[in-house]
């Protein structure tokens, strides 16, 4: 693990600066986005939960209070009936004939107790139980003995005058019973039987859409329990508030008068599912922000680092030999300053370099002129001409040849002071030189020429071949044991260049040594001079190389761009 982290850090450290910056920006953006998303989600979840709880409470409050209102009406009605003297007469007056009772029952009690059932559909019946009533009369007046079968009878002696009871099962009903006392004994009971479904309707109607509910009477008995839920949400025991409160949002409310507890609950999962859905909805937003962040990070880091990168690349190029500053910046920031100072530094360096170069070339030029000035060509030619004629007179043909060759050599070498010459003249020059050399060496080596036609008019710097040939003879052929020493001169046309080559099969040298010839530290001045001149004249376009193998020989070649127009240094 630690290793991995270290590896990761290592990898990060080796990343390009731009990528590093992108990654840092992404991380810097992701942290607040993540935090924001999380805190929003958390807030929303809390809000939803609170809302759910609140909704349930509201729902319950509404239904319970509407049941309370209803029950208040029934209570008032029972009160009204119980204060009715007519009704009290039924169980107060004792001795009377059946007919008198009949009149009271039919004319007084029946309308009094039946009328409310017509106007209030929820009231199923109103019954008066009394010891004074000996025979059941419809369901309005019943003997007290009949009351013994009623569920509320057992609780008759409890506190309040008015009692509410609720029963489930086959005879489900809600009953309000009101006692009448005669001194200490209960003399009569007025019982109002209400339609269970209708009275509880405001509560029951709420139990849709994954909602459950139950009602607990004042004795703690569950008198109603229902839940309309998908199977997976259903509680195991729909009649246990304790169990339910663990896995459900459960709210409870106690009804006035009756003291019944109403519960309503909803599975937590349902609302949590809603929250999860909300979360899912946020994911695209987060994704988009991440994408945006990476894009912006990329763009910004690119923008920030591009100049630096350009600078780095430029520096690399300079390291490889190019001395040009291509990177530019007008910005006043650190990178801009860096670029500008780099540019200034390079400029100064280039300036210094060119200064050294130019002064050197000037020196060469002046040296050349001095050399040329030392030789009075006319005097030299005249002298040579006389020598030639004298030699002819004396029959010394060889001297004549050498003199002619020498004359040609000097004429083409001096070239009337021009630094550039044509290929033809250069060939004349080298041939004259080689002729002299052959004479000097008693034709000990062979010269093989391979010269293409049609190159005669191209302009090239003068005296580029002679120093090479001299070098080949002095350091190659002269010191060689080769029995058949040969010097090859090759001039041929290439696509854009003219190719010159002087090759010998002499002693040769190590490549290291060969390379040194062209450097500052070389002693072979002539060869290096050729190289310098080509470099100065053609820069990259020209080329000069020495290849040598000890014992085998040396090969020197030059490539010069084709050029027909005179160019003066």
């Amino acid at each position, binding site marked *: 693990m630690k290793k991995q982290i270290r590896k990761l850090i290592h990898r990060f450290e080796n990343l390009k600066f731009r990528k590093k910056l992108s990654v840092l920006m992404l991380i810097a953006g992701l942290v607040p986005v993540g935090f924001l998303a999380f805190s929003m989600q958390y807030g929303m979840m809390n809000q939803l939960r609170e809302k759910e709880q609140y909704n349930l409470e509201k729902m319950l409050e509404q239904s319970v209070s509407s049941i309370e209102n209803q029950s208040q009406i029934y209570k008032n009605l029972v009160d009204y009936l119980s204060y009715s003297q007519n009704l009290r007469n039924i169980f107060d007056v004792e001795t009377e*004939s*059946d*007919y*008198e*009772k*009949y009149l009271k*029952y*039919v004319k007084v009690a029946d309308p009094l107790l039946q009328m409310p059932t017509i106007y209030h559909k929820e009231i199923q019946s109103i019954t008066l139980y009394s010891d004074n009533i*000996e*025979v*059941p*009369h*419809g*369901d309005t007046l019943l003997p007290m003995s009949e009351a013994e079968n009623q569920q509320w009878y057992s609780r008759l002696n409890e506190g309040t005058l008015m009692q509410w009871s609720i029963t489930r099962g086959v005879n489900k009903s809600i009953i309000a019973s009101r006692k009448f006392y005669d001194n200490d004994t209960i003399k009569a009971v007025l019982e109002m039987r209400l339609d269970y479904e209708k009275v509880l309707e405001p509560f029951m109607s709420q139990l849709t859409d994954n909602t459950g509910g139950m009602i607990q009477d004042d004795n703690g008995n569950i008198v109603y329990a229902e839940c309309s839920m998908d199977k997976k949400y259903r509680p195991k025991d729909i009649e246990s508030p304790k169990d339910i409160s663990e896995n459900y949002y459960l709210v409870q409310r106690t009804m006035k008068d009756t003291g019944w507890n109403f519960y309503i609950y909803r599975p937590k999962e349902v609302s949590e599912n809603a929250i999860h859905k909300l979360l899912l909805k946020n994911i695209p937003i987060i994704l988009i922000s991440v994408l945006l962040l990476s894009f912006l990070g990329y763009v910004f880091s690119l923008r920030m680092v591009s100049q630096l990168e350009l600078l780095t690349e430029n520096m690399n190029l300079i390291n490889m030999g190019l001395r040009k500053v291509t990177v530019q910046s007008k910005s006043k920031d650190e990178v801009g300053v860096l670029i500008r100072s780099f540019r200034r530094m390079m400029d100064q360096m280039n300036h210094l370099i060119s200064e050294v170069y130019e002064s050197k070339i000037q020196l060469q030029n002046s040296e050349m002129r001095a050399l040329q000035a030392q030789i009075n060509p006319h005097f030299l030619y005249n002298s040579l001409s006389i020598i030639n004629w004298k030699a002819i007179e004396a029959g010394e043909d060889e001297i004549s040849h050498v003199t002619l060759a020498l004359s040609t050599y000097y004429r083409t070498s001096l070239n009337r002071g021009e630094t550039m010459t044509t290929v033809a003249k250069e060939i004349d020059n080298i041939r004259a030189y080689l002729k002299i050399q052959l004479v000097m060496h008693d034709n000990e080596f062979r010269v093989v020429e391979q010269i293409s036609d049609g190159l005669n008019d191209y302009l090239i710097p003068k005296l580029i071949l002679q120093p090479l040939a001299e070098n080949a003879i002095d350091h190659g052929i002269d010191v060689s044991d080769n029995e058949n020493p040969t010097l090859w001169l090759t001039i041929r046309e290439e696509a854009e260049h003219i190719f010159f080559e002087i090759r010998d099969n002499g002693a040769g040298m190590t490549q290291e040594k060969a390379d040194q010839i062209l450097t500052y530290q070389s002693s072979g001045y002539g060869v290096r001079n050729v190289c310098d001149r080509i470099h100065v004249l053609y820069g990259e376009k020209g080329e000069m190389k020495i290849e040598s193998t000890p014992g085998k020989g040396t090969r020197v070649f030059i490539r010069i761009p084709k050029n027909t127009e005179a160019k003066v240094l």
Partner: protein
Amino acid sequence: MKNDMKKRILSAQLALILLLMLWCGTYFETKESQRQMEQLEASQSESGASNAVEVKRKLMYKAMHTPLGKYPETVTYTLGKIAGANNSNLPVGNTYENNAYTRYLKKILNIQNEDVFELQDGNTYEEAVNVAIEDRDIPDVLVVKGRDNLLRLIEAGLIEELTETYEECTTDTIKEMYESYGDSLLQSATVDGKLYAFPNTVIDDGTPLLWLRKDWIEKLGLKEPETVGEALEVIRAFVEQDAAGDGQTIGLACSTDVVAGADQTYGVDATFIHAGAMPCHWILDKNGNVVYGSVTQETKEALLKLHNLYEDEILDQRFLLRKTENIDDLLKTGHCGAICGRWWAPNNPLSAAYNVDSNAEWKPYLLDKEQVNETQKISVFESYDQWMYVVVRKGYEHPEIVAKYVSAIFDQSRYANDSAAREVNDYFSINVDPTARPLNINVDYEDALYRTTEHIQAALDKTLDVSELSGLEKSYFNTCKSYLNGQLTTANGWAAYASRIQAVGELQKAGITSTSTLPLENVNAEIPQELQELEQEAFLQIISGEKPVDYFDTFVVEWYANGGKVLTERVQNAYESGKN
């Protein structure tokens, strides 16, 4: 060049449109001519496709002018329907628009009702009918209650005259049935010689019987009573020897209405009839004068008898304090062994008691037959105040539909031994209320009760072949037979046997014939609430001894003084003018 092209395209389009129009013209022309051709063909020849049209037309004509001709296409009629309690006990899945009756009607006549409203008799139905009449927007077929409403409709010109359809589209049996009630019934729906409605018929229910628990008689070792006196002794024995066994046996049950009439329970009507009294009816006395039955000396006599029964503790001692539902309970709990009731008492309320205790063997007794027959001879006025009439909306294209309905339901399905009607007849044995029928009337012979029982009895005695029985009779026959051989032990089985065979058999043995009724026309003979109360209180006070029997005379004086006199004179006048 470009313009030229455009012009060319335009002209081409125009040409195309013209062509199209031309083609359309010729097309429609050919259609029109084809239609004419077809009509021509239809009217001239009887060949090919036109034959079907002709056959259909003939079928339709036949359907519209015969009792049982089937319509070639389903004829739908909108209907104001009187619904029954508990969906008329219809089997699950059946409705008032789709049950055995409607299916039968569809099959036989190809007619289908479409109920505009389905409301229970009592208040809501009458209100809806009232509103419909006031809005002058009545359904195609409607049942109205009360002759006054019928007259309103006739006067408003909202209903179709049915004289012709009655002649054409009712079977002879239906005509016979209506005729069995005398002229007065159809006359009540006739104005200026034109019949406007099909009246309901109320078959004769015979006379009230005394129902006693035969198992108690046997238990107490008594003799089955043959006279009224013996019967009273039996009841006394029930009470004195406490047949119920818990000291709470009551005597003869009696509702506080005292007189139950044709459709209530627990009246003591039999006592009145035994005294030759006809309370709660307008009757003709021996002198041919109109009198209200409750104020006659015979009624006083009956009340005296009842008072004596009360004193002798034969009549339920606490009857004043009970309601009918309490008596129902007493029957179920086996505390009462004697009631007065019509032949149908086994259906209501006794079957409920049988359900609780099938050992409770209630048996009907008709005692003092001579006096009963004598009382039956009293001329009783029949009021059409609450009578039901079926009417047809003026302008409805099939006014014959009601006549055809009556023929199909009350003749074809009952008497024609029609196998298609089996489901309809089975409704009797599974206790489906007659309110399940689209139209809430019954049409049958006045003595249909006796005829039916006669046939069932004959079939049980094997003197009549079962195949001779009508659908209704066969249904009862099967039930009774199953009950008798012990296959059927349900309350329904017992009730069918006890009512149709035992009770009606008693009536037949006594030779009870249907009473002749006199029509009460164009007069409001209804007893006002006040007088009804006065009467009831007087009866109760006398029976319970609250007032001496002679108080009856005071009551009569009061009754006449409080409007009875005027009322009597009014009825007398109406009767006399009707006679002339």
